[in-house]
């Protein structure tokens, strides 16, 4: 159900922007837009399916805390 909602949402997003690009023959824009759309759709599908996606912020936290040693003590 969640996956279906994500699909519908992305079809709506594509419907808002893609016709304009096709009409004006903006092929480069359309290519880049499509790549981004598919990437974000895959991310959304993973999140909607309940698959645990690694958080970039946690990676940044581990980098600053464990590698650089830059972290305050917990109050």
């Amino acid at each position, binding site marked *: 159900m969640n996956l279906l909602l994500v699909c519908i949402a992305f079809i709506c997003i594509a419907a808002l922007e893609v016709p304009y690009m096709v009409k004006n023959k*903006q092929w480069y824009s359309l290519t880049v837009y499509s790549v981004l*759309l598919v990437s*974000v759709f895959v991310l*959304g599908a993973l999140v909607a399916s309940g698959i645990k996606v690694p*958080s970039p*912020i946690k990676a*940044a936290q581990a980098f600053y*805390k464990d590698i650089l040693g830059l972290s*305050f003590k917990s109050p």
Partner: protein
Amino acid sequence: MKLEQGSISTKDLMIGIICFIQATVLRSGYIVGITRQDSWAMAVTGFLFSLPLVFIYAALLKKHPGKNLIEIDDIIFGPVLGKIISVLYLFFFASLAALNARDLGNFVADYMMPETPITVIILIFMIGCVYTLCKGIENLMHLSAILAILSIGAIVINFILVLRDIQPWFLKPLFQLEPMRYVQGTVSVVTVPMGEILAFTMLMPLLEKDTKIVKPMVLGLLFSAVTIGIVILRDIVTLGPLAEIVSLPSFESVRYVSISGILTRMESVYAVVLVILFLFKVSILLYAFALGLTEILSRNPRHSADSEGQSCKAGYFKSQKSHPPLLFICAALIYFYSLFVFESVMENVNWGATTAPFFALTFEFLLPVVSLLVAFLRGNGRAKEVQS
């Protein structure tokens, strides 16, 4: 894009900065957890130490008038390294937007609508942000005056209404904590609410020509510092030791308001104001992210245009609308990012108290300083070539 230079005045910029910082002010619990009864002083030290950031941003923008942060990176570092640094800035803006959206979702889910899934709350919130930006960022900035009056009015009225419940001895003992706590508190205030005005550097091309950036930024930070001080002071003298324990001291202190048993539940006013301010803040961050991504992915970026304000060149994302072309995709990305950014509120709080200041300092201080240095050195190098 239809946006033109001169869409936003310096007054709009100043008030926009006030509104931007207010969203974090009303969630100042993280500062009280660090410096306890002396947290009000962090507003003063935070303001003073954030001034160098303002001067750095102003110097960069003065050297490259009419350009936003992404364009400045391209000019200073070249097309390849400039894009790498710009991607880092975009990661920062996207992370801030996702974290703030998540904060808002947690607040509404915990305090207002506990039976509503957080996914739905954040989704509706992001739709609101997208709608706001579809109507134009300049309209949002013009509206910031009303938002600022609303939020400052709410703070003042709430302060007056809790006056009879205050206990000034909760401020004692003064400045008895270990010095490292004051350093941590100051750095937290400088980086988390105040330094995030870096996002406004993406709006610079919309400012009037020959605008002085320093004055509106400094005044915006000054007013924000005053409100931060007042809010934290109110929370401490109302809640006392409880201020360190609760997650939202401002929310809890406003709950004390009860005039003759009639004027109660003022925290609902606080909640509405907070939601509106968060909408403003996340909209600015979303705009910065979407515009930056558009600029990076465009074949012929805006700054290579023949005339100022001309944004439709061959290969550039053309849009007849007043919002960045990649707005919807960026909003979807930030929505999904906010859902998996942290698994729990405690992880978020821990991040904010320990590592977030250093993470933010990298983008708010280190990268702009390096950019300014490189720009200065390249400028000197070119001057010597001309002389020889």
